[in-house]
């Protein structure tokens, strides 16, 4: 993303609690690395829902989706079965073409994962990229901020 396309913004933060289930773990008895993407998705959905943006309704009403187009994840420590995790997510950067959701996953005070997930907006009909919906940005950003 070019520096010129970045906009100063202030994001809301969502805090989503998740209990590690047995099927989240792998043979090494830790949470599988791919599982964290599901935790991040759940945290994003709850952040949006909390601020009036239903992703389910959005898809049904617009025929658009918000595909993941880029990710970055750094694993600091492992989570294990029955751990109680808190996933905090917020908008780190946004343009009308895509939004970077940043996130951290903690167990108590311990930082386990830092992540960034970039979402775009695309039509289900033709697969073409569209503008990121203003309703999504309104749900995620503090009042008065936009891109």
């Amino acid at each position, binding site marked *: 993303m*070019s520096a*010129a*396309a970045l906009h100063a913004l202030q994001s809301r933060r969502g805090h989503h609690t998740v209990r590690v289930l047995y099927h989240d773990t792998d043979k090494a008895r830790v949470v599988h690395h791919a599982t964290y993407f599901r935790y991040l998705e759940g945290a994003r959905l709850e952040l949006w829902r909390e601020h009036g943006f239903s992703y389910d309704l959005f898809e049904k009403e617009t025929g658009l989706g918000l595909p993941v*187009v880029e990710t970055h994840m750094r694993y600091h420590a492992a989570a294990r079965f029955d751990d109680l995790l808190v996933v905090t997510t917020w908008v780190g950067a946004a*343009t*009308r*073409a*895509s939004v970077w959701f940043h996130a951290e996953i903690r167990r108590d005070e311990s930082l386990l994962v830092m992540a960034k997930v970039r979402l*775009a907006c695309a*039509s289900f009909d033709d697969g*073409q*990229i*569209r*503008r990121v919906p203003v309703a999504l940005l309104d749900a995620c950003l503090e009042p008065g901020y936009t891109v």
Partner: protein
Amino acid sequence: MPQHTSKNSLKEELRSLIAEIAEIDAIPDDAAFKDLGIDSMMGVEIVAAIERQYHVKFSDAELSQVTTLNRSYELVIEKLPQTSAAAG
């Protein structure tokens, strides 16, 4: 809205704008954006920047038409008041 004394100046403004967003030095008139490494998401960013700078609005259908500098220029020219950019 910026005042344009000629079509060429508008095209050069667009060239600079697109080059800045795409972080590419040269934007040939008819080079396909995809061949310059400009993907569809960057295309949306380019359209958003054009809309902000020239106070015009692109439809969703027009988003996919922004494929070259010349095509971008044609779309902008169609949307600008005639007294602005089309004088040259």
